């Protein structure tokens, strides 16, 4: 995959040189606009190819490239082709900032799409907003919606903890349910905890207790006696990635799943694979995409089919789908704007409604958050799985609505 | 020329050192300064090294007192010993291996002159380089000025070893087996050097080569099992029955222990 990325990278350099040479030659005969029309639309794509989320990154790249390919096959922007400049951010915000600077300063990228962790996303955003470059972020976070980090160049295609927790709570909490929380002690963990508790308060569920655990902790045994003593009906585990796999597994070992239902804000395809069917059995969470959505949503079917055709019958995963929806919607806006001019594309994105993989989506004006559907999924029992990729059961699809977001006011955006 | 100081330079009072339950040195008292060269002898494990370490400040005593030039040194940190005028050499060559011979001496001299100067150029410190050259000539290493110490021959390293001790221009020089590992020729040259040095300062040395000690030193101290068992002129020591018993019982005569 990365080989493709690098080929794109070097192609871009060569085409840039060729393009410049052509500009010079043609300027001589007074036809500069022809050369300009041939200039590719460059989309910088920082993603953590190395590191623990390598598999998710690979999916993102494949999906994003699929979107680029489809754009180019349908003629591009009046003949201008798009290209994806993939860069490895190594899941390190400093590295990501350097790569983004390179993409903007050296590669002259028109747009930036990508990032897979909240920290990396915020660092890319910091670079792009000061350089006035449009950035479509595809990593989950509440922070990026808030006025402090937001800029008019910032778009957020991914879900955020507020949306996912509200959807999960709506489906699992009842009035009087006793809920215990185990949350990672960092921004993302706090955001998920806040979201759940807010939803719980609205529904009338009770808080049995909460424990903040150190971010990146490998062992959760010391929290289990207290969690058990809270006697919850539901255990909300608010963390991500490896922390999620470890804590669910250990909660299971301590027999907590027999006493309580385990609920998470986000149920990830690859974490479920790493954690195993037994540990995750019956765990409920939210997701932006699951391939079996194709049974009810036509655009999902079209996306899956295109993906299967391009990548040897593979299916797209949740984080992979973000690569597709983000790049696809961006290129739709470029087409609508008829130009790569940042201001024009911003205006086009703000006015766009797109349905490319999961039903209709649009960006809210005040914080550029994509209003979209949220899937509630449950991890399947091993014996009930129909094939390797049949990991989840879709319990419900919460349709996209602005009511699911925090108000512009609350986020600090002045109307 | 320079007369040997008549006032006692070093006073040792009931000095002792324990390591846990083990007593390495006990109740040693002596006054030094009258004689130019004093030798300390004794079988292996007699406490010679411990005594040297106490006298040079490398170890703090667990009992007794130490006075140098009338000043109490019992609790003074080691670095101060060099500043006040006590220097030592080591039995195993202990130089700065990757510095040149000249730098070895200049650095050692600098320890007394300047330690926390971040700004001057070290080679421009007043007169140090010249003094190091002079000392280099003194110990016969002028021709090896810019060779790294590690690449010098054994005898040359021994000379440099003593040169470093001399660099601080000490009033009291503690030499730990200065001729260790040397052949007869080298030993002879070292003895001549020590005689010369003894003219201007007090020297205390630990040695095993009895013949050399008898010819060189004016006074001999004998340690055994951490205690001082004899203290006197070479003739007195040779006649001492206790000393004979210790040495004869050990290896059948004076010699290498």
């Amino acid at each position: 995959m990365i080989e493709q990325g690098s080929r794109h990278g070097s192609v871009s350099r060569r085409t840039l040189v060729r393009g410049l040479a052509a500009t010079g030659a043609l300027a001589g005969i007074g036809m500069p606009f022809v050369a300009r029309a041939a200039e590719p639309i460059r989309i910088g794509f920082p993603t953590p190819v190395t590191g623990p989320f390598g598999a998710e990154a690979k999916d993102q790249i494949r999906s994003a490239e699929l979107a680029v390919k489809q754009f180019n096959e349908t003629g591009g922007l009046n003949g201008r082709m798009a290209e994806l400049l993939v860069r490895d951010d190594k899941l390190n915000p400093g590295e990501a900032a350097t790569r983004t600077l390179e993409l903007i300063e050296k590669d002259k990228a028109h747009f930036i799409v990508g990032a897979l962790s909240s920290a990396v996303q915020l660092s890319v955003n910091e670079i792009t907003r000061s350089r006035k470059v449009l950035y479509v972020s595809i990593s989950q976070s509440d922070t990026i919606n808030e006025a402090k980090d937001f800029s008019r160049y910032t778009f957020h295609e991914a879900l955020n903890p507020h949306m996912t927790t509200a959807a999960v709570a709506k489906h699992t909490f009842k009035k009087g349910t006793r809920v215990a929380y185990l949350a990672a002690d960092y921004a993302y963990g706090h955001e998920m905890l806040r979201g759940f508790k807010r939803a719980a308060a609205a529904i009338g569920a009770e808080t049995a207790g909460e424990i903040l655990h150190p971010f990146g902790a490998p062992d959760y045994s010391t929290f289990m006696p207290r969690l058990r003593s809270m006697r919850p009906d539901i255990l909300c585990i608010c963390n991500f990635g490896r922390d999620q796999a470890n804590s669910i597994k250990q909660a299971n070992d301590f027999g907590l799943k027999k006493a309580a239902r385990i609920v998470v804000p986000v149920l990830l395809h690859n974490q479920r694979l790493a954690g195993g069917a037994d540990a995750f059995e019956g765990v409920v969470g939210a997701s932006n995409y699951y391939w079996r959505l194709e049974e009810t949503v036509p655009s999902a079917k079209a996306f899956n089919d295109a993906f299967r055709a391009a990548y040897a019958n593979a299916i797209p995963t949740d984080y992979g789908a973000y690569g597709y929806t983000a790049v696809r919607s961006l290129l739709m806006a470029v087409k609508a704007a008829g130009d790569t001019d940042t201001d024009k594309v911003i205006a086009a994105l703000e006015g766009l409604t797109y349905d490319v993989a999961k039903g209709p989506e649009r960006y809210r004006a005040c914080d550029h958050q994509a209003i979209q559907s949220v899937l509630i999924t449950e991890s399947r029992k091993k014996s009930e799985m129909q094939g390797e990729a049949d990991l989840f059961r879709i319990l419900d699809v919460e349709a996209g609505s602005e009511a699911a977001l925090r108000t512009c006011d609350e986020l600090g955006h002045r109307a | 020329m320079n007369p040997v100081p008549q006032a006692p330079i070093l006073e040792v009072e009931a000095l002792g050192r324990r390591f846990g339950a083990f007593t390495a040195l006990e109740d040693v008292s002596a006054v030094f300064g009258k004689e130019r060269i004093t030798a300390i002898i004794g079988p292996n494990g007699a406490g010679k090294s411990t005594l040297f370490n106490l006298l040079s400040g490398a170890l703090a005593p667990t009992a007794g007192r130490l006075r140098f030039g009338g000043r109490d040194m019992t609790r003074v940190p080691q670095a101060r010993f060099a500043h006040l005028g006590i220097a030592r050499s080591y039995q195993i060559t202990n130089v700065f291996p990757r510095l040149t011979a000249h730098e070895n001496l200049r650095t050692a001299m600098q320890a007394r002159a300047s330690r926390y100067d971040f700004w001057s150029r070290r080679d421009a410190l007043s007169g140090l380089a010249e003094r190091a050259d002079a000392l280099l000539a003194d110990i016969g290493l002028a021709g090896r000025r810019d060779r790294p110490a590690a690449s010098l021959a054994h005898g040359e390293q021994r000379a440099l070893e003593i040169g470093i001790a001399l660099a601080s221009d000490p009033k009291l020089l503690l030499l730990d087996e200065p001729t260790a590992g040397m052949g007869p020729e080298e030993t002879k040259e070292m003895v001549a050097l020590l005689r010369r040095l003894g003219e201007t300062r007090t020297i205390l040395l630990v040695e095993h080569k009895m013949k050399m000690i008898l010819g060189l030193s004016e006074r001999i101290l004998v340690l055994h099992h951490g205690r001082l068992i004899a203290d006197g002129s070479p003739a007195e020591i040779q006649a001492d029955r206790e000393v004979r018993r210790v040495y004869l019982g050990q290896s059948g005569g004076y010699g290498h222990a």
Partner: protein
Amino acid sequence: MQTLDQTVVDAPPGAVKPQRAPRVTAGFSRWRAPLSILALLTLPFLLPSQALAVNVLIYGLYAVGYNLLYGYTGLLSFGHAAFFGTGAYVTGIAIGAYGLHPLLAMGLGTVAASALALTVGAVSIRSRGIYFAMVTLALAQLVYYAALQASSWTGGENGLRGFTVSRIGLGPVSLDILDPQVKYLFVLAFVGAALALISRILASPFGAAIEAIRENETRARACGFDVERSKLLAFVLSGLFCGLSGALSAIHLSIVPLDSLAYHTSGMAVVMTLVGGAGTFFGPFVGALVVLVLEDVFSLWTPHWQLALGTVFILFVLFLPRGLWGSALERLSFRRGQS
């Protein structure tokens, strides 16, 4: 004393640190800082991007600062990320939360890093050798977790943001820091000044004192050097320059990631210094250049670039312990010795 006996004895135990410092003549040491700065002026033309060139400057200074302790004083620390990160965080917080002038903020960051170095140094120099490495590592971990916890100050895992410096006013002049060329020269000005200062310190009597301690601690103490105090001073100086490099990185990236305090960042200082040549003035800079460029190039070819990095590093430890620059200097002085 010059006899025919030429038996070369082994270097004394405890002084066997053969990988450092081929010797450079005093005349050259006067010119090393200006020459280095000249060399660094060419970097933006040689490297694929300005951003990478600025990173080389920053990490080069970081490694040079680290080398002050490892290469010249002989203390192997595995916790220098604490100083790099502190320099960066304090700079960022001073600008973002208190609106300080960027230069003042950088000064504050550097001072804070030095103060932390004084504390960490005071605890860790009581242990020696390998133990020292572990103690510094563990204390740096403590700083890392503290920064993670103090998220209202540091932004926690999300990193510190919101202090982008776009212009720096210097009296009548205002520098556009968003312009990559201006930024490069701005950072180079600091790095160049730091290099000149470090060169001067290394050539000073204090430089001689720490070298003596590196070469033979026992003897240095017997000669009258206060070993503990000198080590602590070297530690603080090293922390100061690493802190400055951190402050520069905050200005450069306009974020401070939590990773800047992580074990990995400490390790980078060690890797770069060793690859370039510990105990040589410019070696660590060469190391930073090589490591960062390799990382840049390898990561375009393969996601498994760390395999190459690790292997290259192992080969250096095994076969080229003096590092690239150190070996080159050695070859040079050998040839000079021949002629």
